[in-house]
């Protein structure tokens, strides 16, 4: 048994919390505690989602449907499968840590910061829970507003440029999707994603829709060559903004491919899979090299995010070829599963990396690699965490980074050894840029006097990084609960791909 309207609660509790923080949060500490309380409550409420999920039952669970716009046949329809649950729990988990992480560093307009974070959390849960395309779109676009404000107010020196670029870039992508959705509505007379998947579209229609979706989600993921907003947004965003952006918002793009591109336009996806695979491989290799030469830590991690997200898109589109051309549904499942694990894992790893940079930034107010050096001598605890996350970032076995990438490469090999070989490059490049970063920042002689005065983690920072570390290790050592959770959904998706073949 579970609470009724659990999904609605998970969406609207943070939003209401945001309003409460704005109203009652005149005192900075009131705002902080209120926000933390809301975030923790939301996280606790999201756990029954996982425990209450019945893997044996196919399709969406925790379904809620309410007529929204009868004239358009649009509904307030919510429902989740294993993939969505994993992402929702990731969202609520990360939100708690982000709010905890902003406790000290954010001193100005605390209530607005906390409110924006909570609103963002609610909207993100909404994106993952919506089964109505119009509702999805509303959440998908609505989350730009709090993020725009977050980067613009609390960001770095070039924050205005970065946040405008972020907003306009992502808006540009998604509005093409809107045209696609309206077209699908014209075909089917409703906005239900399920109906869209059974719309019986012709090849030409599918191709147009596929590219409309591709623009939207490729920008969100972001894939090469439409990734240029991400480094700017990441560099200028406050730590919390970067963490949410990397850990969750990018996943919305991957999730969009799973919910829209693959089920609704399977044939076009198959036909143009090479485009996506090529873009993913370029992201993995080329962006990896770009990351290597960065002098700004945040930029480095931002580029590494793009490279890692390349594995998600690679896995998803390799699965198509496996399922439909090679008649290898097991391989396809492995690929999709790998892509999904990579999403979750990257959520932990990138969130942790940005939190680490935030910890350093709070002490020295610089993100440049050259300003640091030998941190291990003054901050041993911090150094330990940082090295762990760095290892996860290069995909060391035993950490979460390994699981997803390994599964995707394994699956890719079944399709084409060449793709697998190129993708496997990441193990070298990823290790190169991450370890070189660690070497220059963490190890060696103490860089300068300022570094010598840095204090080790306080309790709050310890909790944040510790929680991320627990996530990284849990998925890395024993990913089975996670894969079990997502398996039915993955299986269903692959089945759909096979059956829908024209």
């Amino acid at each position, binding site marked *: 048994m579970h609470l009724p309207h659990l999904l609605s609660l998970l969406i609207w509790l943070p939003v209401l919390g945001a309003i409460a923080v704005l109203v009652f949060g005149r005192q900075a500490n009131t705002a902080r505690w209120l926000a933390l309380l809301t975030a923790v409550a939301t996280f606790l409420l999201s756990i029954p989602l996982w425990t209450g999920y019945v893997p044996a039952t196919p399709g969406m669970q925790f379904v809620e449907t309410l007529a929204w716009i009868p*004239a358009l046949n649009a509904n307030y329809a919510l429902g989740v499968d294993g993939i969505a649950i994993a992402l929702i729990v990731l969202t609520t988990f990360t939100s708690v840590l982000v709010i905890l992480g902003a406790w000290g560093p954010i001193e100005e307009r605390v209530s607005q910061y906390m409110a924006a974070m909570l609103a963002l959390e609610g909207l993100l849960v909404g994106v993952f829970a919506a089964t109505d395309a119009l509702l999805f779109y*509303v959440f998908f676009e609505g989350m730009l507003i709090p993020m725009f404000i977050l980067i613009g107010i609390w960001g770095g020196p070039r924050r205005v440029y970065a946040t405008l670029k972020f907003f306009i870039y992502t*808006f540009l992508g998604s509005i093409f999707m809107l045209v696609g959705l309206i077209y699908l509505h014209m075909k089917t007379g409703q906005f239900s994603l399920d109906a869209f998947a059974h719309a019986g579209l012709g090849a030409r229609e599918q191709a147009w829709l596929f590219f409309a979706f591709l623009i939207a989600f490729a920008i969100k993921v972001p894939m090469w060559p439409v990734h240029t907003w991400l480094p700017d947004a990441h560099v200028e965003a406050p730590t919390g903004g970067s963490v949410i952006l990397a850990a969750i918002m990018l996943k919305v793009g991957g999730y969009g491919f799973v919910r829209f591109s693959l089920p609704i336009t399977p044939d076009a996806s198959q036909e143009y899979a090479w485009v996506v695979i090529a873009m993913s491989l370029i992201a993995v290799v080329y962006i990896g090299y770009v990351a290597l030469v960065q002098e700004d830590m945040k930029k480095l991690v931002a580029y590494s995010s793009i490279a890692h997200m390349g594995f998600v898109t690679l896995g998803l589109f390799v699965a198509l070829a496996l399922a439909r051309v090679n008649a290898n549904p097991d391989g396809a499942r492995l690929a999709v599963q790998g892509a999904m694990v990579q999403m979750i894992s990257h959520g932990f790893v990138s969130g942790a990396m940005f939190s680490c940079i935030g910890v350093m930034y709070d002490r020295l107010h610089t993100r440049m690699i050259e300003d640091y050096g030998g941190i291990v001598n003054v901050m041993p605890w911090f150094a330990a965490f940082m090295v762990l996350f760095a290892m996860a970032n290069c995909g060391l076995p035993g950490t979460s980074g390994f699981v997803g990438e390994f599964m995707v490469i394994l699956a890719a090999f079944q399709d084409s050894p060449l793709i697998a070989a190129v993708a496997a490059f990441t193990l070298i490049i990823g290790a190169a840029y991450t370890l070189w970063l660690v070497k220059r920042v963490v190890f060696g002689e103490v860089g300068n006097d300022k570094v010598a005065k840095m204090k080790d983690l306080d309790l709050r920072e310890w909790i944040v990084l510790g929680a991320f570390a627990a996530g990284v290790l849990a998925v890395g050592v024993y990913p089975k609960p996670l894969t079990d959770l997502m398996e039915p959904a993955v299986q269903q998706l692959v089945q759909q791909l096979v059956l829908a073949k024209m």
Partner: protein
Amino acid sequence: MIQFNPADLATMLPELFLLGATCAILLIDLFLKPAQRDVTHWLSLTALLVAGVLVWRGAPEQGTSIAAFNGMFLRDGVATVLKVFVLLTTGLVFLYSRDYLRQRKLFVGEFYLLLLFATLGMMLLVSAGNLVTVYLGLELLTLSSYALVALNRDSAVSSEAAIKYFVLGALASGLLLYGMSMIYGATGTLDLAKIHAVADFSADSPHRMLLAFGLVFLVVGSAFKLGAAPFHMWLPDVYQGAPTAVTLFVGSASKLAAFGMTWRLLDGAMGGMNAHWTQMLGVLAVLSLAVGNVFAIAQTNLKRMLAYSTISHVGFLLLGFVNGSASGYAAAMFYMISYALMAAVAFGMIMLLARAGFEAEEIDDFKGLNQRNPWYAGVMAIAMFSLAGVPPLFGFFAKLMVLKAVIDAGQMWLAIVAIVFAIIGLYYYLRVVKVMYFDEPHDKAALELPRDRGFRWVLSLNGLALLALGVFWGPLLDWCNSALMVGAR
């Protein structure tokens, strides 16, 4: 043969009441001392409220249309919807502008009377069943508007704006009248429904040329009044030059009426030729979207920026007409209502920030508003995001409905053009948000709010309505739809 039927008076009751009330207020105002001007204010609001109730209560049953005075005056669903929102936005104008006018020594009876007469004109216009009534309503509206724009007669900018408005407006009225005369010549009737029935546009019709010219003139006249490019020249100057209270009126209520007129003329009378005018409007729409959005980027004056943004919104509105069917007009009407409510917030905010001797009409005047007053910065941000069409705000759903109408009509390329310009438009709305939230204020002191508490409350409600209607917009859409299923033939 003109026959008089006493029941016709009952059909026209809201207009007759407003006329009587306006005359009474005119007389009462004569005997008031300047200090007692509030009486006029409240009486005017009451008059609008009662007229609104009369419109609502006497509304014809869904799907029917009541004609009065031999079809001169129609009372149908569209008229009801438009009148309700015209009265509502005019009421907002009154509520928002009292302090603003007082500070500028413009708090005079004329403002109220001219506005009430203009409202009467709008009500007549949206109910017109005959070319004569269209013209009558239009002139009542525009003549009052010219005078309103010139209300601040000591200001050179205002006078310049009024003259521009008058000259171009008179030209547009002339064109419209010329078009009407051609159509009369071709059909021998002034009644809109009869024109629709009689007008013969087939290839062998002897009146084909005459009708085509008449149609072009009607389209041009309507485009002038709406402010669609390339007939938009008056709009930026009028918006900037007029006192903000009047700009608010011209930008919200009178746009609703202009929509009503365009719909009556094009669909009501010339519906048989919609294959022709949808193309013309398509061109006008694309031009308006381009001109409005691109020019708005360069503006530093907020009122002028909003003027160009109006042009782009008119472009979007016209896209609804391109569909040439009831659902398209319903989307356009829905769009116009949403625009009127959003414009009311934006201009209301300009008046909220204005003080004696300070207009707050530059974008820079909004710098750091979030630090000075987070609540009203939020209200303005809602209005800007809504105008830009970002969900979950009202403006997005209005755009959605119009886009849907365009796509349903099979005009995919028009939809693409519209969204490309919507992205360009996003920039200048975001800039206002940026100025309010990301910039440091010139003056860190808390914002000095006007004393008029009613103004502050209603403005806040108006802003929140954009959010609330972004979630619960179904009923309003249903209302627009049900109003138009009748109007469409």
